[in-house]
C-alpha cells in the first residue's frame, strides 16, 4: 500500500500537535475512466491514533476527504520521546499503521 505516512508530533507544554499525511487515492466512486467505466470507490474509512499504546482518537471518513489525506489533531499529556501510532483502514479492508516519536 503505497508510501508510509508522514507523521510529525511536536510537544508544546502539555499539548502535542500531531500532523499526518497519508498516501491514498480516496476515490469517490463517481468518476469514470477514459473508457467510460466507473472507477470504483476506494477510500480510507477508519482512522485510529494511539499514544504509547493507549487509544486516543478515532475518526470515520467518507470519500469527500481529499486524495493523500492530511489530518491534524492535538493530544493532551504527551511528552518528547512518547510514541504516536496511526492506523487507517479503507473500504477494501486494507490497513496501514505507522508510528512516530514526539519531539
Amino acid at each position, binding site marked *: 500500500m503505497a508510501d508510509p505516512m508522514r507523521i510529525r508530533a511536536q510537544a508544546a507544554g502539555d*499539548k502535542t500537535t500531531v500532523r499526518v499525511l497519508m498516501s491514498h487515492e*480516496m476515490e*469517490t466512486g*463517481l*468518476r469514470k475512466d477514459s473508457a467510460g467505466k466507473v472507477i470504483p470507490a476506494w477510500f480510507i*474509512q*477508519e482512522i*485510529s491514533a494511539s*499514544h504509547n499504546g*493507549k*487509544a*486516543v*482518537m*478515532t*475518526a*470515520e*471518513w*467518507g*470519500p*469527500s*476527504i*481529499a*486524495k493523500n*489525506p*492530511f*489530518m*491534524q*489533531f*492535538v*493530544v*493532551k*499529556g504527551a511528552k518528547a520521546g512518547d510514541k504516536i501510532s496511526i492506523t487507517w483502514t479503507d473500504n477494501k479492508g486494507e490497513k496501514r499503521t505507522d508510528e512516530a516519536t514526539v519531539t
Partner: protein
Amino acid sequence: MQSRRDMITTSVTVAGLLATAGLLPATAQAAWPKDAFAGKTMAEVAKAMGGSAPVVSADVTVSGPDIAENGAVVPVGASTTLTGVKSLLLMVEKNPSVLAAVFDVTDSVEPSFNTRVKMGQSSNVYAVALMNDGKMLYAVKEIKVTLGGCGG
C-alpha cells in the same frame, strides 16, 4: 418464579452478550456510520448520527479559506470550546457525499481537528459538534471554489 439471584445472573449474562455484539456505546462508536455517510442533506446526516436538529452555536468554529483555488484540496477545520462533546463532524453541503468526516473526541485529545476535503463547487461547509446528550451545534462558512475538485 426466578429467585433474585437467578435474575441478577441472567442480567449480567445479557449485558455481556450485548457488549460482545458491539451494541454498547463504546464499541458502536468506532464502526463506520454508513447511513450518515449516505445522507444527502445536513438533516439526514444529523438524524443518522442520532442527533437532534442542529442549532447554530458561537461555541463551534469551522475554519477554511474564503476562496479555494483548487477544489481538490481544501483545508478545513472543526473545533469547539464546549465540553461534553462526543464527536465533531465536517460536512460539505453541495458535495455528493455531504458528510466528509467524523472525529471522535476523547479526554486525551482537544476537540479540534483539521483535514483537507474535495469540493465539487462553491458550497457551505459545516462543522457540527455532536454532544453526549444528542444535541447538535454547528457553525457554517461559505467556501468559494474557483476550480471544482471533481474534474470541473
